[in-house]
């Protein structure tokens, strides 16, 4: 909560101004009935037309000033609300960018997106409402009571009683609503989910004849939503008549008490009318305030959701004392009995994994789904941190290196396409905008992207749209390879990067790569035996453990799992 409120700090002065303006506005609203009472008590009673016109003009001027003040309030509250949203969004985005995959993967991407967009806008909308409407009610209430107090003590008591009654009523109602509202929000999310499920799973549902099951599940939810909604709506429709009733009875009370006081000569008729109008103004502003109760549960949920993000601290960051990255051309990466768990999971994904690789070597990692192949390569740039064991580069624990420097020497090509919208040039030069055009073109040529880039309208300046959907899967993959090459890394990581390519392109790119990676470390996660057959070392993983480590021919002889995989793809003769 504190972290979110901090975003309001830059607007302290604005908020102060708005509060002052609202106070003035409340005063103006209340002054009109007061002036009217003058017209009645002094103007009409004395048949003094000049006085009536004089006071009337003052009222007109006040109404005009009121208009300007209202506009200013609108302007400032928009400034605060929008500026706040802007700052908060930036804060969340920056926080999420700083997170390592360890924290990041605890949330679905969708949920992170909603938190950065919808949740922020919920809070900012509520904030503007609070400023414009909610502040008005208490100020108007206090002002009204003070004004009444100045003129007549017993009248102010009646008004005060009304305010207290309405406030108590609203507190009760909002408490009743609050839990129901949070529940409703959840139920609506669930409703969306269930419908989406029916739509995306039509075939599966029908294939298993589970239509009824699905309908029942939906109707359970539908029923609960309907009932929750009904409860909330009924509370909602009860508020207005109740507040109205309180207000109307207050008016009668004012009337009766007024008559008694007039008899005592303590009050005049105009004042009496003014008092009942104060009551009306105050009650209207409280009815507006009740709108806030409709919005607040949603905003509160959003606040909690955003807080969850802002509270996170990334576990993977630079140590206070870091070691220098060696300046060398000879590199060696060693995994020493590495054991790794994903956050919260009872069983390790990797257990006692050891291997080593030097510049100029190629290491291939092979294994079934869930065997931990991708986890191995994710550990090298410290996307995750290990639990036990040691990963070193040239003898230095990678945790002792600066993250930036460590990642600078790594070129990573993921399995999924992860291009960003922007020009092709920006994408290839993503690692460093200082990469020369010459190197960019070279990278494009090596990755066989050059030809299709030149075929595009604006060549390297051509725009890639969101998620790269104006490129084929193969083209995306080639650009990702170009991006890695252009960053001129010492360690290449290909996480199943060749599977989207057809065999011909795959072969050619690998031939080109051989030249470039001659003196580098290359780690390939692959499924095709053909892709990795010639690797210097092959690491075979099964259920997170190393079951084979060596060259193709050795593994064929001594690693049954390797042989099995190989045979599933190639015939006995082809393997040799």
């Amino acid at each position, binding site marked *: 909560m504190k972290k979110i409120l901090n975003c309001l700090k830059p607007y302290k002065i604005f908020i102060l101004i708005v509060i002052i303006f609202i106070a003035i506005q409340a005063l103006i*609203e209340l002054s009109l009935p007061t002036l009217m009472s003058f017209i*009645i008590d002094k103007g*009409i009673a004395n*048949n003094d037309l000049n006085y009536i016109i004089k006071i*009337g003009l003052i009222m007109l001027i006040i*109404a005009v000033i*009121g208009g300007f003040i209202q506009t200013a309030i609108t302007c400032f509250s928009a400034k605060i609300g*929008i500026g706040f949203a*802007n700052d908060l*969004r*930036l804060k969340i985005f920056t926080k*999420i960018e700083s997170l390592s*995959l360890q924290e990041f*993967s605890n949330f679905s991407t*969708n949920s992170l997106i909603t938190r950065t*967009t919808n949740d922020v806008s919920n809070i900012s909308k509520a904030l503007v409402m609070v400023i*414009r409407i909610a502040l008005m009610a208490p100020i108007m209430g206090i002002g009204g009571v003070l004004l009444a107090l100045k003129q007549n003590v017993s009248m102010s008591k009646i008004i005060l009683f009304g305010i207290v009654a309405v406030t108590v009523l609203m507190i009760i109602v909002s408490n009743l609503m609050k839990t129901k509202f949070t529940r409703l929000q959840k139920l609506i999310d*669930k*409703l969306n989910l269930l*419908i989406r499920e029916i739509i995306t799973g*039509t075939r*599966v549902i*029908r*294939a*298993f004849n*589970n239509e009824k099951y699905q*309908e029942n599940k*939906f109707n359970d939810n*539908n029923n609960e939503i309907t*009932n929750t909604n*009904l409860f909330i*709506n*009924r509370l909602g*429709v*009860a508020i207005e*008549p*109740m507040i109205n009733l309180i207000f109307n*009875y207050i008016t009668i009370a004012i*009337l009766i008490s007024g008559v008694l006081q007039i008899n005592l000569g303590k009050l005049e*008729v105009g004042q009496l009318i003014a008092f*009942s*109008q104060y009551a009306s103004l105050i009650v209207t502003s409280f009815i507006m305030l009740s709108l806030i109760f409709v919005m607040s549960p949603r905003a509160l949920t959003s606040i909690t959701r955003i807080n969850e993000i802002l509270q996170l601290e990334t576990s993977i960051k630079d140590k206070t004392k870091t070691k220098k990255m060696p300046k060398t051309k000879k590199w060696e990466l060693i995994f020493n009995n590495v054991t790794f768990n994903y956050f919260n*999971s009872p069983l390790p994904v990797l257990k006692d994994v050891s291997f080593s690789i030097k510049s100029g070597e190629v290491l291939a990692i092979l*294994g*079934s*789904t*869930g065997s931990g192949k991708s986890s191995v390569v994710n550990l090298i740039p410290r*996307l995750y941190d290990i639990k036990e064991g040691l990963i070193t580069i040239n003898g230095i624990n990678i945790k002792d290196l600066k993250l*930036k420097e460590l990642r600078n020497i*790594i070129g*990573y090509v*993921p399995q999924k396409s992860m291009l960003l919208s922007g020009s092709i040039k920006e994408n290839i030069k*993503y690692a460093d905008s200082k990469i020369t055009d010459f190197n960019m073109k070279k990278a494009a040529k090596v990755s066989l992207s050059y030809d299709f880039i030149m075929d595009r309208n604006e060549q390297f300046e051509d725009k890639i749209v*969101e998620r790269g959907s104006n490129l084929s899967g193969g083209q995306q993959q080639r650009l990702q390879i170009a*991006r890695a090459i252009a960053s001129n890394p010492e360690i290449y990581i290909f996480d199943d990067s060749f599977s989207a390519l057809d065999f011909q392109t795959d072969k050619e790119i690998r031939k080109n790569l051989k030249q470039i990676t001659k003196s580098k470390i290359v780690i390939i996660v692959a499924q095709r035996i*053909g892709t990795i*057959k010639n690797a210097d070392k092959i690491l075979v993983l099964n259920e997170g453990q190393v079951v084979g480590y060596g060259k193709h021919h050795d593994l064929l002889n001594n690693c049954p799992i390797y042989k099995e*995989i190989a045979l*599933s*793809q190639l015939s006995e003769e082809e393997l040799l």
Partner: protein
Amino acid sequence: MKGTKNKSITDKPKDFKNNLKKLLQYLKPYYIRIIIILIMSLISTIFTVLSPKILGDIITNIYNNIQNHKTIDLINFKDLIIILIIIYLLSSLFRFIMGFLMSKITANITYRLRSQISEKLNKLPLKYFDNNSSGDILSKITNDVDTITSNIDTIITEIFSSFITIVGIFIMMIKISGWMTLTAVATLPISVILIFLIASKSQKHFDNQQKNIGKLTGYITETYSAHNIVKVYNGEEKSIETFNNINNQLKDSSFKSEFYSGLMMPIIKVIGNFGYVIIVLLGGFLAVKGRINIGDIPAFIQYVRKFNHPILSIASTTSLIQAIVASAERVLNLLEEPEEEPNKLNKKIDHVKGKIEFKKINFGYQKDINVIKDFNVVIKPGTKVAIVGPTGAGKTTIVNLLMRFYELNSGKILIDGVDIKEMEKSYLRSLIGMVLQDTWIFNGTIKENIAYGKLDACDNDIIDAAKLSYADHFINTLPNGYNMIIDQEVSNISAGEKQLLTIARTFLSNPKILILDEATSSIDTRSEILITKAFEKLMKNKTTFVIAHRLSTIKNADMIIVMDQGKIVEIGKHEELLAKRKFYYNLYNSQFDLTN
């Protein structure tokens, strides 16, 4: 929220009359309750209109007494005050009862519409889902249903009482003073014109804002999805900078949009205050002249304050009704979509062997474009059949037809000699188990997801099925094991692992015929071969279809059907087809380029 509202108000229903009529059908069961609501509304409105005048009369009375220097005796207005107390009480009570009844009506209608839609979705032919995006359907069941029910509420309770209020107040105002009424009514068009001007201005900025929100969301989505890359290539600062740019653009457009739409309220208020001043002035003048009573001034002020609200309500009626009917049209169109052909016969097979005959099948998803042409083949019971061919050859379509997700244009499909058209769909589908390329995981525990294949399965069955499909190991590495709640978006389960779960599901349902439609394409070859082995064990003597683009996995099929452009081009075993050196041979070799 604002966006959808604006959108739904601007679009117009195509067939207004008809859809309105159909919509009224939904209200029919509640006619009596609605009549009660309307009567209460009438009475409570009359009370609301009368009360300021009564109050005014009391004040006039007091004033006159003062002018005549008499003490005022409360007993004089005892009756009037009691009337007021009763009127106020009844009017609030009636409003509450109205709201109470109306809430129930709308809740019932909402429930009914939603549950009708969900049932409908399960009866629609698959064609419907090909042509309609899921976002559209989703918006019908949430936004459109909401628009209908929340506005019906307003129309019934508000519009009616608004009319009466306006007429009533107008009569009362004229009774007090014609001149004052004229001034009050004159301020109305001014506010309407101002509001209209501002609304059109703010719409432009609003559109701009929406555009920028879209841009920002797009950027966020992309960056979050590529978190790995941003991290590895040290792109955090760069992405924050870009984000900041878009965010600032959004800030500017949002401010303008917010400011202009926010002006509406102050303008109404300021004009209201002007009206107040003018009425007080005029009233004071008329009172001095003795043309009206003192009590009429506060009464009149109250009337003017109450006049605005019903006028705004009525002004928005047409667009409200239009919004309702437009939404109703979308919902009703969905509900009236033709359903899957009903079953006329329900033939069953005594002892399922699994012989499948495709007899001269023709089929197209769209009229005149046949995707399957003269497909003719007999499949022996208990054999493993592979269907291969390039993308778009029609492999998956064959499966869709066998499952009767779509109906044939011509031809017949027989299982053990029985036309599948003569079986009940649910019976037909219970014979066949399928694992599709796209995994479908629903929100629930892993256990529930596996049990989907057999709803009454016990825990042991579920774990056995998971073991058979090699899912048991990875399930145990997850936080809550079998009780972990997952959905389509869960990120620490890979696509392959999701597929393992759906395979476990099929193991559990134990079908007579099995279809694997690219089921292993997201699973690596090692898992694929293990799974295929397990399947073979399960499917002994049962017919299996395998559709795969990776030809290595279907080498041992009993029969390979090679398809191209909706036709069978070759049939045979792996070796036979290779020996032919034709279509299959080329297809096969294009995938195995082994020179290294």
